[in-house]
């Protein structure tokens, strides 16, 4: 290793907090007790944890900022109940199931990290990205861990609030154990797809002056075409292919639909669909990032 032993064994050298073997230069390979695979996990887990700790500093503010989910959820439920009128079922979705469908999509909507795109743009344009690129980690994974810290906390808060509210008013539960358990992989993959889409648009800041122009467009399209406002089942047949050929329904519709109507074959189909989108979009993100990083121009200190 180059320069590894520059100050080693210097007679009378003061104690620098390092063992003699690694004095002045910590030799990672020999000093680290972590096996190769777990090293990466420990590193990224620490990044995820510090973001959680960061939010715990202002936990009360964070919870208050999430209370808007109550209003949005209440309004959408009321609108749909008016739409249902006297009918008990529309497109195979019972009135009660619809309330639970809306709960899941609203919780997703209020938990995903919509600031991610703006944060990446800010990092690129302010030059703050220098503090991330000079560390021994992957910038995309770093960003993912930071974003996940926010998402997980949002999810816990929003789910607790909305679940309590729904159980209080409906006094019923329109799902099954499988419907609940499937949320773990489908929500996780949905958040990942959302992260990748936001990242791709954020990285556009390397080319365009304001990536924010994409924020409103992307977020609206995601919500509408993803079944976040209207369940895909109730769409006209001519529009339904849109849900199959865009990744947005994999974020909102898949977890919510499986929550109310869990079927093993549908679960497998949706899961494969999500994995395919992760692969396709993830590869695109990697290519865009590789290209973008070469274009990085930072003027000034």
């Amino acid at each position, binding site marked *: 290793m*180059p*320069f590894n032993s*520059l*100050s080693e064994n*210097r007679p009378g*050298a*003061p*104690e*620098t*907090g*390092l*063992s003699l073997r*690694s*004095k*002045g*230069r*910590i030799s*990672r390979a020999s*000093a*680290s*007790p*972590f096996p190769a695979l777990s*090293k990466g996990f*420990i*590193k990224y*887990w*620490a*990044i995820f944890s*510090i973001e959680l*700790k*960061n939010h715990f*500093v*202002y936990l009360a503010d964070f919870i208050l900022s999430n209370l808007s989910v109550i209003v949005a959820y209440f309004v959408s439920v009321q609108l749909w109940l008016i739409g249902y009128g006297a009918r008990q079922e529309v497109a195979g979705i019972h009135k009660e199931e619809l309330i639970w469908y809306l709960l899941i999509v609203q919780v997703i909507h209020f938990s995903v990290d919509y600031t991610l795109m703006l944060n990446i743009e800010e990092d690129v344009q302010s*030059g*703050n*990205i*220098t*503090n991330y*690129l*000079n*560390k*021994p*980690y*992957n910038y995309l994974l770093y960003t993912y861990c930071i974003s996940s810290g926010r998402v997980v906390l949002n999810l816990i808060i929003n789910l607790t609030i909305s679940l309590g509210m729904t159980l209080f008013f409906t006094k019923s539960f329109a799902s099954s154990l499988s419907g609940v358990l499937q949320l773990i992989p489908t929500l996780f993959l949905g958040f990942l797809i959302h992260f990748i889409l936001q990242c791709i648009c954020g990285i556009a800041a390397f080319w365009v*002056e304001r990536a924010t122009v994409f924020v409103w467009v992307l977020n609206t399209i995601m919500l509408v075409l993803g079944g976040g406002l209207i369940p895909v089942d109730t769409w006209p047949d001519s529009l339904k292919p849109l849900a199959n050929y865009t990744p947005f329904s994999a974020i909102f519709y898949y977890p919510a639909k499986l929550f109310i109507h869990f079927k093993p074959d549908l679960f497998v189909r949706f899961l494969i669909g999500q994995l395919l989108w992760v692969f396709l979009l993830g590869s695109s993100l990697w290519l865009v990032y590789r290209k973008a*990083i*070469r274009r*990085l*121009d*930072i*003027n*000034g*200190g």
Partner: protein
Amino acid sequence: MDAIEVKNLTKTFQVKVKPPGLKNSFKSLFKPKYRRVEAVADLNFTVKAGETLAFIGPNGSGKSTTIKMLTGILFPTSGEARVLEFNPWKERKKLAFHIGSVFGQKSQLWYHLPAVETFYLFSRIYELDSRTFRQRLDYLVNLLEIGDFIHTPVRKLSLGQRMRAELVACLLHAPSIIFLDEPTIGLDVVAKQILREYIRTINRTEGTTIFITSHDAGDIETLCERVIILNLGRIIYDSEVSQLKKTYLHQRVIEVTLNTPRNDSFTCRGCTLLERTDYKLKVTIDTHRDSTRDVVNQLMSQYDVEDITITEPPLEEIIRQIYKDQGNAF
């Protein structure tokens, strides 16, 4: 042994040019025009292991761009560089384990959390085992005397305290080279001096190569053995600091504020009057000929002094002088 080797390093940026007016703004939407800016041009230099190098120049001279290329953040337009035998932009992640950096204007500490949380995070990022991390942290906490505020949220620290904590974060993994981009910016005189002392100690005790950019001539005088001066992306001076001191840093500017107005003729041995009002005097002295102490004593005895400030000549003045000596116009 060279820690850094740079050959013909060049970096050009494309900057969008927008002529004024609404019509031109509309035009530039469809036909944008770009101007090429040469941030760094044909740099050639080496830095020995353990050396303390000041890389200085005025705003826009290319200092930060060079640091960013040497740390692998920016890709050069052409040229080569080896840092600790790594190609910085091709082996950025590998190199990151061996270098540390502090960008004076950009904090790497988590603003709402105590600095110790960032240190713990960095120990994970740099893959230090717990024992090594604890020993190293203890050592640095004592050395940089940050024990009193290590558990205080960063947002509540003074700038001087924050910079010391930044330095600890940068040194945790015992890097072979540290890149300091204007580390003393915004600090008061005392805080600057303290920080310089810590940096010097790290260099002495651990043999760490120090690559420092600064606007402050004081950083160079007190900290560095060698200085490279950059202007408009090109190296205009590369020499020992002692040489720079002898040739260009032998002047001091003394500003005196008076309690009572004086408008009689000015006499002070060794001084050249630059500016004068009823309440103010601005003089320059040559430290090769006269000692600063003697001149200050003289001024104190002759005038009713309220305040006195002694500064080095500004960097721009030194650069002007270098150009003059090299026979070029500035």
